[in-house]
C-alpha cells in the first residue's frame, strides 16, 4: 500500500504540472516578430513581382478577373481595391511581419512578406 501511494505521488498531470506548462507556454507571446523587408506578389503561379517595403507606392496588378490595387506605405502592405466579389483581401487590412500573407483567391493573387535572404543564425 505504501508503495502504491508513493507511485501516485509522481503520477503525471497533477495540478502543479498544469501551472508549469502554463508558465512556459507564455513563451508563445515572446516569439519575436521579424519585420519584413520585401513584398512578393505572385499572380497565378506564373508572374512574380518583388518590391522593397521601404518605398511607398501603389501597384496595379492584373489578376485573373480584374485589376487589384495594392498599397505599400510605411513598411506595410494592404489591398485597397479589388474586383473580387467577397473583398476578403481588402478586409485583411495591413500586413508587415515576415511570413504574413494576403490572398485573393478569385484573382489568383498571393501577396507575401519576406525578410532578408539570410537570417540571423547564418549572419
Amino acid at each position: 500500500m505504501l508503495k502504491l501511494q508513493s507511485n501516485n505521488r509522481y503520477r503525471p498531470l497533477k495540478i502543479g504540472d498544469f501551472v508549469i506548462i502554463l508558465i512556459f507556454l507564455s513563451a508563445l507571446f515572446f516569439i519575436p516578430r521579424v519585420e519584413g523587408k520585401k513584398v512578393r506578389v505572385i499572380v497565378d503561379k506564373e508572374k512574380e513581382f518583388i518590391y522593397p517595403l521601404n518605398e511607398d507606392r501603389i501597384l496595379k496588378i492584373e489578376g485573373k478577373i480584374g485589376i487589384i490595387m495594392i498599397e505599400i506605405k510605411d513598411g506595410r502592405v494592404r489591398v485597397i481595391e479589388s474586383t473580387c466579389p467577397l473583398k476578403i483581401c481588402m478586409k485583411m487590412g495591413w500586413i508587415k511581419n515576415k511570413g504574413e500573407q494576403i490572398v485573393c483567391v478569385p484573382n489568383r493573387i498571393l501577396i507575401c512578406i519576406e525578410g532578408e535572404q539570410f537570417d540571423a543564425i547564418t549572419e
Partner: protein
Amino acid sequence: MQLQNRIAHISVFTAATVSLFVIESLIPRPVPGIRFGLANIFILLVLLNYGYKEALLVGILKSVIGSIVIGRLFTPSFLLSISGTIVSVTIMGIAVRYGRGLSLMGISILGAESHTITQVLIISVLFLGKASLSFLLPPFVLLSLVTGSITGISAYWLYTKLERKVEVA
C-alpha cells in the same frame, strides 16, 4: 542500503544514462542543439530512488563519459552539456524535495527548461559576448516543453515498472 549495493546500483544507472546519451547523439537532427534529452529519464530515476548527490554524480559522469565516447571532450558543446546538466539536476532536486503538487512530468519539464535556458544563456554570455541569442529562447522553451513532457511520462512509466520489480525480488 549497503555501500557496495549502492555503488553497484549507481554504476548500472550511469551505464544506462551514458548509453542513452550516446545513442541519442547518433540520431541525425535537423537543427543543431535540439535533443530529446532521453538520458534525463535515468537521472530522474536516480534522483527519486537515491537522492540529489547521486543524481548529480550520474549527470556529471554522463557528460564526461558521453563526451569521451562521442569525441567531444573539452569542446564548447561539452561545456554546455555539463553546465546544463548541473543546473537542471539541481532544479529537479529542489522540485522533488519541495514540489508537493508536481508529478514526474512537471519535474522533468522543469529540468528540460532549465537545461535549455542555461545553455542559451551560456552561449550568449560566453561565446557571443552579449545576450544576443535571447530571440532563440521562446521557440526553444516551447520545444523543451514537449521534450520534457515526453521524458517525464517515460520516466514515470519506467519508475512504476522498476518499483514493481523491486517489490517482487
